[in-house]
């Protein structure tokens, strides 16, 4: 007891000293942040706010990450600007990731109407629309009194997420996807290049273009002491902990084995092409077919090319293995490079290269049930993650005000500002986030925010290629019951990785769970929703 009292006294004494020191360093960065934000605010479209909105308030539910954390951060940050703009304000309610489904559904289903808007994950879209819990926003998109978002510049995959069927439901905000990060310095080092060539009989791919290559590279770096004698030298770092979005890794690996183009119109969704989750004719799960098994076996091999602790790593720990210099590569969401650029979080600033998701040299043909060699590599992009975007509850008391705010956040200037400042957790996904000649962004935007120049270029280009140049995309699952389907996937993949069951058995278990969920919810209804979600019209 006494020990604790004196500890607190000492702590209190240091409070003053600590406060002074830390605030010094932060000062100049804060100024830059504020001045660029002011500029973005001035330039952004403002539409015409309704003067009747003065003094009103609404409630936004979002991810729990605090005032300087991902997704919730920008909501806190822009509040004073919004108040100045409209005289209205809003309350931010934070929800922990694992419970977004439960809490949001609770509010919507009960009709309690505590949340006017939700900046949530797009995987819940199916439940929202199926239950008629949110309103379509088409009418706001071309109305001049609402800030105009540049819809055409949103990458097609993200645009699809904001829509359902013929309507728009979500406002442009975050664009999640997973890409590969790797240590530029290691890949450029002749010593490792020579050793790799000698061992694997081909040049060290910089960057790896297929999962097959990636496996070789990871195994290689896992086996040589590139980090100095006696130090950790992991090949790759993956966040595989159950319940922590580890399943997205599997989806990204599986996509290039599974998703194939029908030739002709590559975007057309047919029974055998551009499908991933279920057979659109009868909702039979595809998850335990050959390409998925191959993918899971690849993932298991990849897991072995890194620390065995990966199975207990959530995002933070996995990123840390890479940011702390212990792993040569990392495959994850768009938070890695932004984190790498801050000294509080990383020791590898200036060494972080990035490349879009690897593809596969062969693809499964569902029609002929055979492997087909891809010309070059079958590249499939992904929108893994949540892609946090705002939707409006049907119970919102003032939907117009809410729409105004969400549209304003989606305008090019503000959205791009959010993208360049890492704390926001908003990732690039629109033309104005990418560099010329493709887009309108400048490297200086990122450098000014503290990024190393080359790191920023690699990062942004990786997303640009994946979002706009990849011919195929992994369709996101957005049907009712998605969290239940994903939970089963997550748990059984984890079982396979931990060696509890074989890859095929794990996938069989998933398929059987999925059938049960589909039947419980109503197979006919699910078929209809699934077709709507992926845009299948027969064939």
């Amino acid at each position, binding site marked *: *007891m006494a020990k604790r009292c004196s*500890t607190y006294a000492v*702590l209190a004494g*240091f*409070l003053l000293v*600590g*406060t002074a020191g*830390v605030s010094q360093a932060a000062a100049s960065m804060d100024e830059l942040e504020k001045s660029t934000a002011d500029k973005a605010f001035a330039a952004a479209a403002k539409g015409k706010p309704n003067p009747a909105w003065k003094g009103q308030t609404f*409630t936004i*539910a979002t*991810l*729990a*990450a*605090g*005032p*300087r*954390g*991902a*997704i919730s951060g920008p909501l806190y940050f822009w509040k004073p600007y919004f108040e100045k703009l409209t005289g209205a304000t809003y309350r931010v*309610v*934070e*929800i*922990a*990731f*694992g*419970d977004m489904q*439960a*809490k949001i559904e*609770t*509010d919507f*289903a*009960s009709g*309690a109407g*505590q949340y006017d808007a939700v900046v949530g994950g797009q995987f819940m879209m199916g439940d929202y629309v199926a239950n008629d819990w949110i309103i379509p926003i088409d009418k706001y998109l071309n109305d001049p009194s609402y800030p105009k978002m540049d819809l055409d510049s949103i990458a097609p995959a993200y645009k699809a997420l904001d829509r359902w069927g013929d309507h728009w439901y979500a406002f442009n905000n975050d664009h999640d996807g997973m890409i590969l990060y790797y240590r530029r310095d290691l890949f450029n080092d002749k010593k490792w290049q020579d050793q790799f060539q000698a061992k694997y009989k081909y040049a060290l791919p910089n960057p790896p273009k297929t999962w097959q290559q990636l496996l070789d590279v990871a195994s290689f770096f896992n086996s040589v002491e590139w980090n100095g004698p006696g130090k950790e030298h992991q090949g790759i770092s993956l*966040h595989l*902990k159950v319940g*922590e*979005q580890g399943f997205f890794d599997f989806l990204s690996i599986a996509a290039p084995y599974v998703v194939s183009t029908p030739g002709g119109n590559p975007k057309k969704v047919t029974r055998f092409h551009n499908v991933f989750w279920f057979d659109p004719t009868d909702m039979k799960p595809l998850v335990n077919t050959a390409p998925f098994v191959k993918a899971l076996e690849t993932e298991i091999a990849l897991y072995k090319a890194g620390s065995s602790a990966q199975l207990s*790593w*959530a*995002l*933070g*720990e996995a*990123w*840390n293995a890479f*940011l*702390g210099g212990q792993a040569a590569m990392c495959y994850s969401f768009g*938070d890695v490079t932004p984190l790498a650029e801050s000294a*509080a*979080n*990383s*020791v590898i600033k200036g060494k972080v290269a990035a490349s879009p998701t690897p593809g596969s040299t062969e693809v499964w043909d569902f029609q002929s049930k055979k492997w087909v060699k891809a010309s070059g590599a079958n590249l499939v992009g992904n929108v893994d993650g*949540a892609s946090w975007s705002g939707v409006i509850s049907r119970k919102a008391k003032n939907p117009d005000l809410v729409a105004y705010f969400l549209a304003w956040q989606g305008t090019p200037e503000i959205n791009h500002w959010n993208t360049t400042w890492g704390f926001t*957790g908003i990732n690039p996904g629109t033309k104005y986030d990418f560099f010329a000649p493709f887009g309108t962004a400048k490297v200086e935007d990122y450098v000014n925010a503290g990024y190393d120049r080359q790191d920023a270029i690699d990062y942004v280009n990786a997303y640009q290629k994946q979002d706009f140049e990849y011919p195929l995309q992994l369709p996101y699952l957005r049907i009712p019951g998605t969290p239940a389907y994903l939970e089963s996937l997550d748990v059984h993949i984890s079982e396979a990785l931990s060696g509890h069951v074989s890859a095929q058995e794990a996938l069989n278990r998933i398929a059987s769970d999925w059938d049960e969920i589909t039947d419980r919810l109503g197979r006919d209804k699910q078929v209809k929703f699934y077709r709507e979600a992926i845009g299948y019209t027969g064939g």
Partner: protein
Amino acid sequence: MTDRDGIRRLGGVPAPSDRLKDVVASAILVLAAVWVLFPFYWAAITSLKEPVDVFRLSFVPWVQFTPTLSNWRSELFYRGSAIFGGLGNSFLIGLGACLVAMTLGTLAGYGLARFRYRGWRNRDISLYFLSQRFLPPAATILPFFYFAQRLDLLDTRIILIAANATFTMPFAVLLMRDAFQGIPIEMEEAARVDGASSLQILLRISLPLTAPTLVAAGIISFAFTWNEFLFAFVLSYSRAVPMSVLIAGTQDVMGVQFWYVSTRLLLAILPPAIVILIVQRYIVTGLTLGAVKG
């Protein structure tokens, strides 16, 4: 004279074999103390580490890592309103549950101590209350959620007070029953002869005599409510979120922010720790619901 173990010590000089046992006992004690305190120490230093330091091993501040107060600042100033809101909710819910449980429990305890029931015997009633502690919360969480939704009681402190009052009522009933049984009935005789009602006797005579147990039971009820998680987690999501759930809120899309968990753990453990230390004499009796006299 003999000590606890019935070992006769002559002239205060213990025999060699006894001394060895004493040494072993002391060693065990020290190890156990380290074992008990280590997590708290760990939480304290983790709360003082920068995020990147959290993943690197270091035990001693200043020697192995640079301590920072930024986590505490962030929690108390930036997130201050949420933190203090959480503490406030925990207090209100704990207090509310305690009051309800103690009121109903004291009445029931008095009844069980003073009356002989028929049909349903004293023992049956007591066990009826006791079985509350046996009940897995999983068995009632779904209906609670369902009805709270229907009755518009979700995310209210009321529903959490109701749930926690139910969980902690056994402590009140059984402890107070025990305490009342310890008061000789003769002390009430005089007032009874004078025509006072049972309730008046309870309030004016018996209750003051059992004040220590009353306080102890109340504090146990408060402390258990403070740490309750499942119901608080499921039934609250915005306004009524107590501290136990707020700790869970440190888990965001990036995984757990350990530095914040540590600050919140320390903030969260302080109130129950303080109050429990006040009534530690009654801990054993309390936690065993009267089965063991402490």
